[in-house]
């Protein structure tokens, strides 16, 4: 399966560092936009998004263009999947057009892993179900490094709907590999105890005030109502016990940064006061999406 990037779990620390280091070269460094580097001229990137996405898809498109590659984006609504074609047949059809890489997002966990066994075209996972979202974890790591200078020994707390979050899983795998201490916090039905065992150095804390104490990074997650198959916790109850507010910031490390993969729901998991504060890295994360995805695509395309 060539140099597919399916998840953080199967990457080692050196490979991750290589991507994160390379991304620095693509950052604007005060310039108006990202450098146009054209290292991948003539390559063809197909973005196959079977689930809605605005930021990830546009970020991959910009990244590909900055590398000089051509792109084609298809979405489920306009694809033959809507006409009843199976995922394997759709991807085989796309692969027959000889793209250099297929960037894919799919609502089923493991869909890219399953396809990678049957396709020779490399696949970059842009989010699979409730499993992994590797480029999000990489851009989050780049953002933390830009601000804090290290991952090792950092105290990171991830708060919210952990069970349904692919962002959480990829971040847990990455942070654990780099020796960060990771606390998970969320309502018990959305944070199964088994989560503590998926990687080393993970702890679970159901009390948010205890979880944020001394935290240097707070990552908030959206409640993924579209993936919850039973009546969810009432919004007011959720915000009261798991919504991030100024009072939590005061319990955290004095230099704490606040992250969120977006889209954010103000007043549900985060207060506007915190979301719009100087500590909020939300737009830095979006910005870092482009250089990190350039590094990821370049790694696949030039291998």
């Amino acid at each position, binding site marked *: 399966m060539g140099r597919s990037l399916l998840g953080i779990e199967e990457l080692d620390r050196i490979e991750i560092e290589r991507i994160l280091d390379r991304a620095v070269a693509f950052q604007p460094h005060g310039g108006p936009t990202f450098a146009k580097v054209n290292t991948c001229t003539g390559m063809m990137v197909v973005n196959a998004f079977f689930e809605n996405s605005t930021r990830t898809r546009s970020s991959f498109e910009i990244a590909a263009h900055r590398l000089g590659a051509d792109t084609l984006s298809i979405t489920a609504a306009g694809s033959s999947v809507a006409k009843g074609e199976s995922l*394997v047949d759709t991807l085989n059809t796309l692969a027959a057009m000889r793209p250099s890489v297929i960037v894919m997002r799919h609502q089923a*966990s493991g869909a890219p892993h399953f396809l990678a066994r049957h396709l020779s075209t490399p696949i970059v996972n842009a989010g699979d179900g409730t*499993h992994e979202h590797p480029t999000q974890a990489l851009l989050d790591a780049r953002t933390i490094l830009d601000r804090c200078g290290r991952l090792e020994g950092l105290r990171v707390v991830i708060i919210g709907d952990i069970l349904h979050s692919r962002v959480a899983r990829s971040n847990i795998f990455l942070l654990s590999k780099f020796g960060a201490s990771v606390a998970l916090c969320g309502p018990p039905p959305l944070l199964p105890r088994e*989560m503590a065992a998926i990687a080393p150095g993970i702890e679970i804390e159901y009390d948010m005030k205890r979880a944020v104490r001394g935290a240097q990074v707070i990552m908030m997650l959206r409640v993924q109502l579209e993936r919850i198959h039973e009546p969810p916790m009432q919004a007011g109850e959720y915000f009261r016990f798991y919504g991030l507010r100024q009072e939590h910031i005061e319990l955290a490390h004095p230099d704490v940064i606040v992250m969120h993969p977006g889209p954010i729901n103000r007043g549900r998991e985060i207060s506007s006061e915190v979301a719009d504060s100087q500590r909020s890295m939300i737009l830095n994360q979006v910005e870092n999406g482009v250089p990190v995805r350039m590094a990821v695509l370049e790694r696949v395309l030039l291998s």
Partner: protein
Amino acid sequence: MKKLLIRNGRVICPATGHDGVADVLIEDGRIAAVGERLSASGAETVDAAGLVVAPGFIDIHVHLREPGFTHCETIATGSRAAAAGGFTTVCCMPNTNPVNDSATVTTYIVEKARREAVVRVCPIGAITKGSEGEELAAIGSMIAAGAVAISDDGRPVMNARVMRRAMETARALDIPVIQHCEDLNLSAGGDMHECTDSVRLGLRGIPAAAEDVMVARDILLAELTGARYHVAHISTKNAVAMVAFARRRGLPVTCEATPHHIALDTRHMRPYDSNYKMKPPLRSREHVEAVIEGIVSGAVDCLATDHAPHAGDDKMQEFERCPFGILGLETALGVALEVLVHSGRISLNRLIALFTSEPARVIGWKGEQARGALKPGMLGDVTILHPEYPWTYDVKNSLSKSANTPFNGRTFRGGPILTIVGGEIVWKAPSF
């Protein structure tokens, strides 16, 4: 009068306690004699020297997919796969299309099997109409037409009152009620065993408790009604403990385990490979050990394959979209020998009991239908096997119409050699 003489094999018949070199004579489709140096003029002979001669194997849990899903399997192909696994009797579950919930469908299967099957096919009728769990099916008529038990397998009977009525009916007919134990509210949407791996892979989990609560409820209903109650494909430590508990209280409660649930745990799963997706799901090691321990202690009564063929394109999908179930007939003996006998957990004689006398006892065939032992007058069904010879399972050569197995390419030590139904050789190992 057609005669078949099987000579010089090591005859193991757990029901009679026979274990020693002997001849077996089958006349006119029935066992005529078991003894040393039998002679029969005009008999076809099979030299079984160096081989084990056992009663015909019985699998009380298969899906033959006919009528309705003949792109996955048919009575003809499924029965050939059964013969290749050493089975001479299979009981087919009613989740066909239409569901086997009437004498009409039961008769269709019985007649089709009479014409096209190479082994004996005994239908299991549905408990409820359409297996929808609400209204009892025509149970008496299906039994009269040849069904041997009732089950809504693939689905549980969720409504306790309906289950109670089914058990009352079954008791009067002296047939077992076979339950697919799964509380649908607890298992809803689950694709694998709920554990660290399900959380890690982002797959929805089926907790062990989904099986346990149904077993617990049903044991109470079995006590209330006095029915013979059988747990299909048992897979959890608490379910095994509860069956053992029920039996200590003298209740007619039995259970079966599948070869795959004792051979594989969640750690063996290739991520997102639907050849590892079935219900109940592959469990974690502690549950697998408990089921094996249940087999050793006798809490688990018999082995059954839950042979569940699915066409290739149904299984070539995103994991969560793939149907549940895997093949089982052709690999059952090889897997069971590996996990239970070669590992030293049970004797070969006990393993043969788990495939013969024990499933026969669970169903309760009587009189002319009696099977599962090499006793004169019983059906002339014999399985000849070799407990040591090495062979490799290649699903491309499978006699099933489907190929959904996690055991493709696996090399086994020991397997079936010759399958005999009613004195007729219906399958021979290619190397024999």
